């Protein structure tokens, strides 16, 4: 029961969906459409469980007074506040003047956006302190990076204005993007495609079972 049922479910769902791709008939299409919608509905509950685990984690920290537990209090408080706000009425999430929207645009947004913008500083610092042309390959990589960087900004062409039109840095950058870059990414994508196909196959046939986790 504990291992067999999930393996049977995975096999039936997976094999049907993989073969359905080759069968355009309307009966297969109807099953396919409903199976997809079921996936979304089940998925909603999976996401809810993820949020449940988050609450668990922080509740545990607070109740055991683990290191820096007051921060967990902030998290739980914010979660409860936002949930109550959002579920209070169907219009809560749609009203541009509502508190839910304000929290989104003036609290959630700036923090998320700023977190990511820190990367601008990090990349600059790494460029200065760590990106070295130590080997042939690293040299090639950095050269291609610098050309693309210059080629994507208007200043790049101004710097190479002495070159005839059609051979300036932006054209070189385009050439790199269009040809060697395409070749490299194609080789990688063919590998990725085969990798995903192999993993999917192993999951459907029950060869790959790590998702079942340990236990009986």
């Amino acid at each position, binding site marked *: 029961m504990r291992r067999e049922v999930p393996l049977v479910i995975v096999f039936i769902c997976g094999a049907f969906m993989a073969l359905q791709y080759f069968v355009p008939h309307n009966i297969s299409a109807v099953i396919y459409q409903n199976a997809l919608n079921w996936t979304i509905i089940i998925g909603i509950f999976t996401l809810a469980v993820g949020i449940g685990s988050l609450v668990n984690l922080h509740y545990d920290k607070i109740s055991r007074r683990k290191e820096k537990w007051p921060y967990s209090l902030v998290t739980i408080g914010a979660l409860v506040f936002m949930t109550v706000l959002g579920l209070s009425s169907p219009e809560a999430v749609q009203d541009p003047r509502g508190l839910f929207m304000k929290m989104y645009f003036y609290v959630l947004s700036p923090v998320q956006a700023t977190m990511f913008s820190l990367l601008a500083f990090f990349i600059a610092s790494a460029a200065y*302190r760590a990106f070295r042309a130590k080997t042939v390959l690293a040299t090639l990589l950095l050269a291609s990076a610098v050309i693309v960087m210059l080629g994507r900004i208007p200043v790049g062409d101004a710097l190479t204005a002495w070159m005839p039109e059609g051979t300036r840095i932006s054209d070189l950058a385009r050439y790199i993007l269009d040809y060697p870059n395409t070749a490299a990414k194609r080789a990688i994508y063919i590998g990725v495609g085969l990798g995903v196909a192999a993993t999917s196959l192993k999951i459907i046939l029950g060869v790959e079972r790590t998702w079942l986790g340990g236990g009986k």
Partner: protein
Amino acid sequence: MIQPGKKIPMFAIVTLLSVLSAYIAQAQPPHSHMTFVDPDSVFVFKYSSLAPQPGPPENLAAADSPNDAGGAISISWSKAPGDNTIFNSVDGYLLYRSASLDDGFSFLTRLPAGSTGYSDSDPDLKNGENFYYQVAALYGRDTLYAETAGPAVPGAQLFHTKRILVLLFMALFSGTALYLINLAKRGGTLYVRPIPGIDAVDDAIGRATEMGRPILFVPGLGEASRVATIAAFTILARVAKKVAEYQTRIIVPNYDPVVMTICQEVVKEAYSSAGRPDDYDPKDVYFVTQDQFPYTASVNGTMLREKPATNFYMGMFYAESLVLAETGFVSGSVQIAGTDQLIQIPFFVAACDYTLMGEELYAASAYLSQEPQQLGTLKAQDWGKIMAITLMLIGSIVYLFDSGAGEALKNWVIGG
């Protein structure tokens, strides 16, 4: 695999220089392209006596659309006289449909000049019923009707004929994969070439011992079930075993609690198998936090305090990759990275001594663990690559003999 300290080979410089000089050699600006059709002359042609006599479109045909669930009919015709860029004398086409030839046709849609077909998927089209079509060409105020076509009967198909190559490829690839995994399970030998990075691992641990400094192993930010994280466990097992043998120290800061539990098991096991179970210190494999940047800050702090001789970054990495690699570089550690996150690979290559890129990480893991499932999958993917390359070359060779056949083959491969 990136190897340090290698001199740039002469031929690389020569190639680079010649490509560069050839590039600069095209010193002339591109000439403006010759235009064969002057837009003004088109206007003249339209009313010239050279224009062919107006006539209805010919060869009207209607048939069930292939490869669908039914409810659609494809209609095609050949262009009416004068419908081309030179004379431009047709203004458009009108399409009509009827359920029977006696009832008279009702208007369906108007299509622009140059059209030669239409796919009708109106909800009225019931599978198994008859439908007739008529098309007319518009010449200014004149409408010239073609002969009617039909009956066409919409219906559903059981097999999508344009996807046959996908099915073939899928079957062949799946068969190969299953065969190889089973072969490996039964103890058959599957050769995987040694991955150069593995030797580097041993060297790096020797170096740490000489310097009397610890080794830092960062298992990434992925969950325990990700392929890259699983590969990281295999590599950690190898590293920890060597560490135990050399009697140095290994530090493993974790982002994910589940990953931490497994890492503790792996390191403990490695110490036991090296015959030094007592040297294992569980406090060195610890959980930090599940917040990306604070985790990074904490690992950075560890690097600066402990000054590890070697840093390993194995598994899933996101934006923190370059921050970690930078700190490690500045504190003078040898750095070995491995990830399947394509976006992060460039940063690791630029700041680390060795980088296992994408599939190389899986290969290293398969090579070290000799686990049948990993080996079989890796080999099957190798066969998949051979199949892909063969298909590419066949395509180009067919072109050499007959470009029409080449084009047809290519379209068949693209499918639908």
